[in-house]
């Protein structure tokens, strides 16, 4: 009985001569939440894109749910199978929904792809899913532009969990939202994990957010992992200079901006 859902080893990704990701390895266990932390350009989004198969690694291997990901062409049947293993929620709540597709249809489309349901069952299931992410039945007939950023992100989460994946990758999924909405979405994600036992790969630059959602964390800089460990330890006593710098960049209560020297 293996409860490892993701095993990545020696991941490397080059774009032309630039190396975006270099020698990244980690494992994710069922029901766990792993945070990937780093500043912009540290390669964390590239890791996410490789996990869900939008990029192929230049080197290294990924296996999800014990099945290795190859590099060749993938049949649509295999793609749907992979879809039930791993799903993603993107950062930008505005462009991650088709602006012409009604909210109910977004969820129904993903149900129709994966489960043999009658239209009535599908509709009912879609409404259940919307309710599970904190939306009401009246939202089902709305277009994305009629929803707020937080509500759209809820729709993106409903679309992803509709296929009942083992792993959900959240690529800066709350970064575009304001702090109170962030908290709501993080609570929602915690609820979903508790109910379904899903695993998260949580990609973020925001240590406060990471602290709330993850058990373990890896810190990336310039495409490499510089530190890893249990999230509370990592945040309380970072060993690496880079992690300390990241932590120091989080404003705290009582924080006074130091006045800049006039040049």
């Amino acid at each position: 009985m293996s409860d490892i859902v993701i095993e990545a080893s020696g991941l490397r990704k080059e774009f032309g001569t630039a190396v975006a990701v270099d020698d990244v390895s980690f494992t994710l266990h069922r029901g766990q939440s792993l945070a990937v932390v780093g500043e912009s350009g540290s390669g964390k989004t590239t890791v996410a894109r490789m996990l869900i198969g939008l990029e192929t690694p230049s080197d290294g291997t990924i296996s999800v749910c014990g099945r290795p990901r190859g590099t060749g062409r993938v049949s649509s049947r295999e793609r749907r199978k992979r879809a039930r293993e791993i799903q993603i929620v993107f950062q930008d709540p505005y462009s991650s929904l088709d602006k012409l597709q009604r909210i109910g249809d977004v969820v129904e489309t993903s149900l129709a792809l994966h489960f043999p349901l009658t239209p009535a069952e599908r509709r009912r299931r879609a409404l259940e899913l919307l309710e599970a992410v904190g939306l009401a039945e009246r939202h089902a007939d709305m277009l994305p532009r009629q929803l707020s950023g937080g509500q759209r992100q809820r729709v993106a989460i409903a679309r992803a969990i509709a296929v009942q994946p083992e792993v959900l990758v959240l690529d800066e999924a709350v970064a575009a939202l304001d702090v109170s909405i962030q908290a709501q979405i993080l609570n929602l994600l915690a609820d979903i994990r508790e109910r379904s036992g899903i695993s998260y790969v949580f990609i973020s630059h925001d240590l406060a957010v990471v602290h709330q959602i993850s058990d373990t964390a890896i810190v990336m800089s310039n495409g490499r992992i510089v530190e890893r460990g249990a999230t509370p330890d990592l945040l309380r006593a970072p060993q690496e200079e880079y992690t300390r710098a990241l932590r120091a960049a989080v404003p705290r209560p009582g924080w006074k901006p130091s006045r800049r020297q006039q040049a």
Partner: protein
Amino acid sequence: MTALTTRVRGSLGSRARDGASRAVRSLGPLGVTAAALLVLVALVTLLAPVLAPYDPDQPDLFNALGGASAAHPLGGDALGRDVLSRLMWGARTTLSGPVLIICLSTVVGTTLAITAAWAGGKVDAIVSRLLDILFAVPGIVFALITVAVLGPGITGVVLGLAVAYTPYVARVVRSAALRERNLPYVAAAWVQGRSAFAICVRHLLPNLRPLIIAQSVSALGFAVIDLAAISFLGLGVQPPTSDWGLMVKSGLDSATRGQPLEALGAGLLIVLVVAAVIVLGDRLGQEEGGRR
């Protein structure tokens, strides 16, 4: 704002009315005039058999080169055929050809554009270079080639111009499709396991539709001019069929003999229709630009 004012569960009728009033507002007075003119021309074209006072092909020697009169408001041509009736019937050939050209080139162009944008890499490079080559050749030259192969007549000209107009649609649609294709919702659909075909037809095509329509309508204006020009040169529509391009040509002879109404009427109609189509295409394009 529209998000708040549009009623979501409005009846179908009220939704359609909302759409109509929004269209009027976004077209502006000039756009509405252009649209109204085109609707009028389309109606006359369709109802030509009912509205035309005479058989357009029936010569009447008593009316040859006749001036405007109560019986013949625009007089007669060199053979005495009623000019007004010929203008009405001529609209059918003059306008149906360009509509066919644009339908063909829009379907082919959009298919090429979306395929290229989706596939990327080599496919995109080949399609793009092909479109560049087509773009470099003027439409009239293409029509001359197909006419040389198929002989004078509407079929050859329509095929030639359809090929020539394909890049007008395809190049613009390709760059928009490329932008759309890179949006996260497309990646999300792909990760969900949707097929490439379903993503292109269900997501890309509807989102590109306003742009495709705006671009096709603009191209339609130019197709009317090209087709009329080719008929004027004697390679397109063949006499005795009535056609505005042909009527400008035969009307030139009549004009030197004192009956300018045939050439003037046909020429003026071409100018009006082309101007209206281009204004409308421009407005649709602006609206599309404003939505982005």
